[in-house]
């Protein structure tokens, strides 16, 4: 199949098989910031924003993503790091880094809907993102810091 996808604001032409998952199509076309983890919708390493909603790209068939807008972690900012990314660095919430793109996108999706989340909201919003280093305390602190900074950035 051949179609056009809008990824990070740019229209790109993609070729794929009718059974291909969005995860594989994105990685094949250079978007390797979308990580391949469990391929079962459980780890959250592959999450992207599809029309602004956080989804596991391993659970999306590419043929169903025509005419949608896909945002990967690199699409959150074209130049410098976002307040969310800075908060993850400043809080020491990055260990091996494999889960970080998914965590950052999940944080972004949360703060879009709820700019002042409490710890319960944060845990719920990140319930689909697993950290294999088990660094959850720092990650939750990072989301709280990001919420504070995003609020101050307006």
């Amino acid at each position, binding site marked *: 199949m051949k179609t056009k996808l809008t990824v990070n604001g740019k229209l790109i032409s993609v070729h794929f098989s009718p059974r291909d998952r969005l995860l594989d199509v994105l990685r094949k076309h250079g978007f390797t910031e979308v990580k391949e983890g469990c391929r079962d*919708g459980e780890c959250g390493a592959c999450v992207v924003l599809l029309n602004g909603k956080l989804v596991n790209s391993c659970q*999306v068939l590419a*043929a169903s993503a025509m005419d949608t807008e896909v945002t990967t972690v690199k699409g959150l900012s074209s130049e410098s790091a976002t307040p969310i990314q800075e908060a993850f660095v400043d809080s020491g919430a990055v260990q091996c880094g494999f889960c970080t793109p998914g965590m950052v996108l*999940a944080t972004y999706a949360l703060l879009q809907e709820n700019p002042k989340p409490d710890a319960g909201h944060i845990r719920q919003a990140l319930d689909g993102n697993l950290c294999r280093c088990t660094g959850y305390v720092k990650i939750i602190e990072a989301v709280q810091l990001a919420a504070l900074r995003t609020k101050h950035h307006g």
Partner: protein
Amino acid sequence: MEQLNWYYPEDLSEAARLISDGNKAPHSGGTALIRRGFRGIQSIVDLSRLPMRNIEVRSENIEIGAMSTYNDIIQAFPATECDHVLVQSLLNSASTPLRNRITAGGSVAAFPAWSDFIGPLLLLNAEVELIGRGAGVYSIQDYLTQRELRAGSLITRIFMENYPHIGLHHRETRTQVDYPAFTITITAGRNRDVFQDLRIVVVGSKDRFHRMERLEDELDGKPVTHLNSINFEDFLVLDIPSRKHGSSEYLQHVAKTALTWMLMKIAGEKV
């Protein structure tokens, strides 16, 4: 590898025409299809362009478009109704990114063994509207038990009752990231002295779901203290198959314990 054709209908009549031959698989969120695999499927009808994502939560009834996602449904309820049995069950059912993808219609049509959605629908006397070969409105029980209704038909909307209730939903899992071995859903009127309009269903039994009508009849209309005087063994006849979570005997014991605990929670401090 077999050929796989995708169709993208723009309106319901085109979708009904495509689906009625019974040879094409509908695609809504796609999660069930990916899990199931494509064996035997040569054509897929993508439903994403169809106007089926509206949700109306009214005081007496609820209407859900088949393409509404679990998170769409949760967000359609006002914050004051976060303990609604439907919200409880969907919040626990999957992770946030999956809830953004799993649809109401897809969940009912696929009815996976781990479904958290079916219990509340059964208790709220849901009905499904179909287009295609079996066009019409059917009770959720009929839809789930009559295979002929599913082939060549497409769910467009789901209707159900709404009423003030105490709702509890239990999913038996080994970890939070796990499919449940079974679920138990209970609703009851908000009277804390008397069991009122008590409804109980177990999903995941050998017959897929089991409405516990004998227990409902025994308790309904009685003071909540009646719980102390009944022998649960007489009523809790459950047939849950062995699963990865444990043997049939173990799961039945767990189910009875969970059900007892849930009824005591509904009864409050009086028992």
